């Protein structure tokens, strides 16, 4: 990142998917790298259900306006979350969407979209509740936000003991999905 | 029977002389209640400097200004909530609340039931004169059925609260009732309430002669006191059937008592555990 650069990330889905927690873990990881972070959330007044955005503004310098205005990256874990975010995408934005819960995207002129089996991977690992960790791994791998071990440290710090193993497995699986997708698209570009 | 263990009681030692003469109407029972409270405090040798009296709005609410202590005349219905903050922040103080029937049961009803539930060491006196006297005599939650007030011109048709049953049901550690007709019993009840380690609720049946009595043609203050005698009976005689007592009689004396933990002490115990856990975490 160059001084003055500002990156805006959003993990979006529904309440109860653990999106605010995954945003917090990513914020912790980026903060240890010396980045200035503003993390916010938009949610509806129900603890479960309703759309939920977990946003990060990342900057080399102090963040002036702390809320998202133009998204560089968007992760979609539910089709419900498309509408509030679609108009905010920056040209060329990275969009990761879940193959089960958000299989189709509206047309957009200029985005890089990746359909990844985030929730399916979580289910295969034993709990759909860790889809947020799979998504986090995939996002960091695709957007190259920080080294994997930095993220892992943040996840360790924020996870209760009983969930640590499955969270780290999910994070690793997400990372693998992201890297595969990244390699595949690089290969496609090479052809 | 008053056991005279403390030095001779002189009520003037506990009153703010500069506030005399007081503003209570002739025949009002509140002065009797105040004197009984001061006697009980004297009997317990309560240090005036460590005594905090919190009162609400209304005739009863004005009494705090007459007591030579740290006194707080607060908003209508809220004295128990103010007292809760004061007692939690300053467990070294003895906190007494003086409230009226409107203050305690109507606008402050929620605070009463939660104060009973919480069981913090506060002694709450509710002076029940069945009427909003300060505002000119409107119906209150304790006005007896068919009594005439300025807002029930044809007689009150709402049922009235039994404040002691309410307090007991809400869990107050100590609940009692007495009328101003029996001063020694009233003073002893206050003494017992003050000695109780948790929340104590004492309902004092106190006559409003000037407004309520006049409106309902209940006669002079002495006639109203005599009327109390016919309407009250000690709790010990609750099951008596061959009674000279009338149907709407109210039991008096100690009506409920329990040994639930006092909240202030329970909180400080829980807080010490949180502090210890934090210290342990800090050392790691």
């Amino acid at each position, binding site marked *: 990142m160059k001084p003055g650069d500002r990156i805006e990330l959003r993990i979006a889905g529904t309440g109860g998917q653990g999106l605010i927690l995954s945003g917090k873990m990513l914020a912790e990881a980026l903060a240890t790298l010396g980045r200035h972070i503003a993390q916010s959330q938009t949610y509806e007044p129900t603890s479960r259900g309703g759309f939920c955005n977990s946003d990060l503004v990342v900057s080399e310098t102090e963040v002036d306006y702390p809320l998202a205005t133009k998204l560089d990256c968007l992760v979609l874990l539910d089709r419900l979350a498309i509408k509030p975010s679609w108009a905010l995408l920056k040209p060329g934005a990275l969009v990761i969407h879940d193959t089960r819960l958000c299989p189709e995207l509206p047309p957009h002129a200029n985005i890089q979209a990746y359909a990844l089996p985030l929730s399916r991977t979580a289910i295969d690992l034993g709990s759909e509740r860790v889809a947020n960790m799979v998504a986090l791994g995939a996002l960091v791998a695709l957007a190259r936000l920080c080294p994997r071990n930095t993220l892992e440290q943040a996840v360790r710090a924020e996870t209760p003991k009983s969930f640590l193993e499955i969270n780290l497995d999910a994070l690793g699986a997400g990372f693998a999905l992201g890297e595969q997708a990244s390699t595949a698209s690089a290969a496609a570009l090479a052809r | 029977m008053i056991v005279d263990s403390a030095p001779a009681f002189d009520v003037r030692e506990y009153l703010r002389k500069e506030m005399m003469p007081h503003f209570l109407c002739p025949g009002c029972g509140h002065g009797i209640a105040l004197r009984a409270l001061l006697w009980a405090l004297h009997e317990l040798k309560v240090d005036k400097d460590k005594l905090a009296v919190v009162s609400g709005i209304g005739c009863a609410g004005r009494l705090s200004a007459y007591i030579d202590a740290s006194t707080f005349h607060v*908003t209508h219905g809220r004295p128990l909530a103010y007292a809760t*903050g004061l007692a939690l922040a300053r467990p070294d103080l003895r906190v007494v609340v003086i409230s009226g029937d409107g203050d305690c049961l109507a606008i402050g009803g929620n605070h009463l039931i939660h104060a009973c539930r919480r069981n913090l060491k506060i002694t709450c006196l509710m002076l029940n004169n069945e009427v909003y006297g300060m505002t000119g005599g409107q119906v209150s939650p304790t006005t007896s059925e068919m009594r005439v007030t300025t807002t029930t011109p044809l007689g009150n048709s709402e049922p009235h609260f039994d404040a002691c049953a309410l307090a007991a049901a809400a869990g107050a550690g100590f609940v009692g009732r007495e009328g101003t007709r029996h001063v020694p019993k009233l003073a002893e009840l206050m003494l017992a309430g003050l000695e109780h380690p948790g929340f104590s609720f004492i309902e004092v049946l106190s006559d409003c002669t000037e407004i309520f009595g006049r409106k309902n043609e209940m006669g002079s203050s002495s006639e109203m006191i005599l009327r109390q005698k016919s309407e009250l009976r000690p709790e010990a005689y609750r099951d008596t059937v061959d009674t000279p007592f009338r149907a709407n009689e109210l039991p008096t004396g100690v009506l409920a008592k329990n040994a639930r933990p006092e909240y202030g002490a329970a909180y400080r115990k829980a807080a010490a555990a949180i502090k210890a856990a934090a210290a342990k975490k800090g050392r790691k």
Partner: protein
Amino acid sequence: MNAADSPLAARPAVQLVSGNHACALGAVAAGCRFFAGYPITPSSEIAERLSRALPEVDGVFVQMEDELASMAAVIGASMGGVKAMTATSGPGFSLKQENLGYAAGAEIPCVIVNVMRGGPSTGMPTRPSQADIMQSRWGSHGDYPIIVLTPASVREIYTETIRAFALAEKFRTPVILLYDQAIAQLTETVQLGDGMPCAERLWASGAREAYRPYAAAPGAVPAMARPGDGYRSHTTGLNHAEDGFPTQHPETVERNLGRLLTKLDSHLEEIASWECIDCEDADVLIVAIGISARASRRALEQCRSRGLRVGLFRPLTLWPFPENALQAAAAHARSVLVPELNTGQLRLEVERLLGRDRVAGLHRIDGEPIAPEQIAARAESLAKGTP
């Protein structure tokens, strides 16, 4: 960057802290040892944090039966001599006004946090708003003095919470910390440090016979008696004389109420606080608080990069309003723009001070914050004389 090489290395560690968390940390740092509250979105995190933090410093947390009771309990604790605070949002803030007026009139220090959410009534619990600007000043009945502070960042919530206690204690007044949901639930990287020294209340000393609870020179703050110290004084919400007892004697009321109502104005220099950015040469001056000020800061940069002379005036003390500072900052501005999440409450005060002719509003009430681009576009058209 290697942390050890950083010029920031000697400063406190960087933490990720939310606005409401920073408020709880600031309160503890300021010496707050009593909190009473009632759950309400979006302020409950303050209560949750303090339920754990206060016992660790021998303080007391209590969740009361309702909003009225929590305000009352806070005043009760403060009357006992303990620094005390409560936190709420609009619907609860309405309920707190009764006892808040008591604290203002009886001069009991306390801090009230109001995290603004959409209104009226239950409104939009999880969406930001700035529509309690006037309620924070005039919400309780009667004339009374009040201090209202409006932080705009997580770091500032921490420092302004500490300042709120300092002002409350020093001037024996309720102080309201007013910030919007967007800032409250925002998490930012901050370096908080250990806080700063917090003023202490002036306690009564000397002989009991000579003590008069409300005796003070015009505009001055009287010493307070701590229960247990032997003064045995009386406190009431009725109009009172210097001795603390009720009075309706016109001259006595005039004298005592007069002192109360001027005590903040006569210490304005100590109380007022604001930030001016690029105001000196500004053609267009933006006046904003909270999240709208953060958006304005970004809008200002966007405008300046386009060669437009735009400045920002941001009151940190909202009430009493920093009148002279605003008038000085706006001295050369042709237009003044007030972006805010309501239909014109801050604008009303700005118009009162600068006249209506050159003041324009940018208002949003749909639960969405005003984006920097919206403010920049409006400022640009004002700068070009096409409002």
